[in-house]
């Protein structure tokens, strides 16, 4: 066997992962993706092992609940054949490996820096000199936006090539938010610091990333979570989904100048985030999720309060959605705008909400379930047009689905178990583990490797945005540039989660 089969959150010894030759590694992984559209690469990264670079590639299968892990040793110097020439979904991963370690590829279509990380291989490559794609033509013009955008949002530079109002091509350059997070996970010593760090990977996905870190750490320590821990985390994950989807519906209405929708959805986010504050003391759930701990257990009183919040939220949310879906002027802006075809979505390996809007049934809650999801029998919401309206519908229906899940869960509240946090101070030695969590945006993947003392040797974070920024670039092609804001907002991708 050239690969190892594992499940979500299942730790294995690093030496159990087969090390194969580069050609075998390439044929194996690109082959697995091309054989089945249900497979995609969840993580592919390198780390230093002696003088060589060890590459680890993880392919997840949406149908058989397995993750296939293989590895290979490479060196800088001679160029290698790229995975991307065969399967485009590896494009970003290989660019990152090239940027970090100077591994060269002979046939990579687009070998450019990803985030200009502080420890990049070639320090001569600077963010101000990013090599944008350009077309030499007198009839076309370029529009550059950023890094500081017009609104109160994070920075990135977008370069459009347009024919009049029509977008021919968009290239997105990121990296401005790079804070050196992955390295900090190794540098900070205490578990508290690492957990706090995980909450600050992306402030709009606090529960998602903190849960992924908690799962990673718990699996390294062979710690079995108790039902009450899983219960709190699942409810928090679904509340985060409701809050952000509702906020994004508001932003989408803002971008089509529909003031009523903008104001109503905007205000409907507040009771949800305020409930998080009532529960854990922070509107964005910071300070809530900790490995091995249930800091804020759900009591019957709190559950009743949450049901009360949802009972008042739901009719107002429904009413506004009915109005929006009957409004021709809104539909004419949403429908057939920013289309990502199913084929394109498969080719570039789109995940999460964006994948489900393009007809892919890709949802970690269903394909690699964790916490309370096996009990909920979660069935993903799938739409097929891949346009902005599909993403609007997904958000709307996922909000109702999350409310249903929470109501189902709250019927039975597990007893609070005593915490045994001492087990969490000594992670196992020479382990590899991988955690997948379905955040509101999509699949979050944290992977960790420990050394002979149980110390972290490598920590790898992958936000769903890492895959999905390319989907946005494809979605806007042949659209009017004035439709860019709604295309962008329909995905609402993360800059800090990508830049790390």
């Amino acid at each position: 066997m050239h690969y190892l089969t594992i499940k979500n959150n299942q730790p294995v010894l690093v030496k159990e992962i087969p090390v194969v030759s580069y050609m075998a590694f390439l044929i194996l992984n690109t082959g697995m993706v091309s054989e089945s559209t249900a497979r995609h690469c969840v993580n592919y990264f390198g780390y230093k092992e002696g003088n060589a670079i060890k590459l680890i590639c993880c392919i997840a299968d949406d149908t058989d609940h397995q993750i296939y892990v293989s590895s290979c040793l490479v060196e800088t110097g001679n160029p290698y054949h790229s995975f991307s020439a065969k399967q485009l979904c590896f494009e970003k991963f290989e660019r990152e490996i090239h940027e970090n370690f100077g591994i060269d590829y002979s046939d990579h279509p687009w070998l450019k820096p990803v985030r200009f990380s502080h420890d990049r291989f070639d320090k001569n490559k600077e963010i101000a000199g990013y090599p944008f794609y350009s077309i030499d033509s007198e009839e076309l013009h370029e529009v550059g936006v950023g890094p500081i955008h017009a609104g109160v949002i994070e920075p990135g530079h977008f370069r459009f090539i347009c024919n009049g109002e029509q977008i021919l091509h968009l290239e997105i350059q990121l990296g401005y938010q790079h804070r050196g997070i992955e390295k900090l996970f190794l540098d900070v010593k205490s578990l508290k610091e690492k957990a706090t760090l995980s909450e600050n990977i992306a402030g709009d996905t606090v529960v998602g990333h903190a849960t992924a870190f908690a799962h990673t750490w718990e699996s390294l320590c062979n710690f079995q979570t108790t039902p009450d821990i899983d219960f709190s985390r699942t409810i928090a994950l679904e509340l985060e989904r409701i809050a952000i989807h509702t906020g994004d519906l508001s932003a989408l209405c803002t971008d089509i100048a529909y003031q009523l929708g903008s104001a109503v959805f905007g205000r409907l986010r507040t009771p949800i985030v305020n409930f998080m504050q009532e529960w854990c003391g922070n509107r964005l759930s910071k300070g809530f999720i900790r490995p091995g701990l249930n800091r804020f257990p759900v009591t019957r009183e709190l559950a009743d309060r949450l049901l009360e919040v949802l009972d008042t939220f739901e009719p107002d949310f429904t009413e506004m959605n009915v109005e929006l879906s009957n409004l021709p002027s809104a539909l004419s802006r949403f429908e057939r705008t920013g289309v990502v075809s199913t084929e394109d979505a498969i080719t570039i390996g789109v995940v999460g909400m964006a994948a489900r809007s393009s007809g892919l049934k890709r949802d970690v809650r269903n394909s690699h379930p964790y916490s309370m999801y096996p009990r909920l029998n979660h069935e993903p919401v799938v739409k097929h047009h891949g346009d902005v309206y599909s993403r609007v519908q997904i958000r709307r229906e996922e909000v109702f689905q999350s409310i249903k899940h929470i109501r189902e869960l709250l019927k039975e509240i597990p007893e609070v178990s005593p915490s045994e946090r001492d087990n969490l101070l000594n992670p196992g030695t020479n382990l590899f583990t991988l955690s997948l969590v379905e955040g509101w945006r999509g699949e979050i993947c944290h992977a960790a490797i420990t050394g002979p003392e149980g110390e972290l040797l490598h920590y790898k974070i992958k936000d769903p945005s890492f895959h999905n920024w390319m989907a946005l670039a494809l979605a806007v092609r042949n659209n009017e540039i004035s439709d860019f804001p709604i295309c962008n907002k329909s995905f609402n991708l993360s800059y800090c989660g990508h830049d790390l």
Partner: protein
Amino acid sequence: MYNNLKILYHQGKQFIPDVTTAKVPGIFRGRPVISLVKVDESRLQATCPTHAISANPVSIDLGKCTFCGECAMAFPDKIQFTTDYKISTNEREGLIVKEGDDQPIAINPEKVRKEIHSLFGRSLKLRQVSAGGDNSCEWELNAANNVQFDMGRFGIEFVASPRHADGIVITGPITENMAEPLQICYDATPDPKLIVLVGTDAISGGLFSGSPALNRSFLDRYPVDLYIPGNPAHPLTVINGLLDLTRRSF
């Protein structure tokens, strides 16, 4: 039309009538109060993930604190977080809460530049720069403008161009890759101008303070007019901080 009116009716009145006296719901970790109870100080310091706690006398630096509440949970007799969200100040030392003091954190009127009241007392336009922010402070700054908090009623707004702005609001620990764009944005803002830091990351670098991916030299070059702590800062903290700094009378 009838449906629209029905929706409007169902929303009721959402705005918070008085943002200076509003109460926050449930648990809220605002200004901490540290009692004089004796505890193992080194163990207390070790509970803090951002090293915001100092010993002898015990104090918490709100510019470093991530408001995670670990210290208050481990030492409930020693440290309590109150729901006081008015924790902005124009002095960096003002963010350090010492044991025994239970005083509100406030603006020092002596240190407010004179032109701030006369020029910005009724209208303040700000350009926000996210310099490595994790999007939580950005979310809360946007929330400050929503129908509940409605910061716009005080004449305070975020604008798209630094040329239209009276100052800049920085979130995030200031990454190396944002150092130059931040400087360009500041230079493009006409004088006289404010600098406001929002969130723990911006004020001290927070958890990222040791990261080699940061370049905080911008803050060595210019004085800061207002520190708004929090992780993220609550919209009421933001609005009260800006109002206290710019209002004509105290």
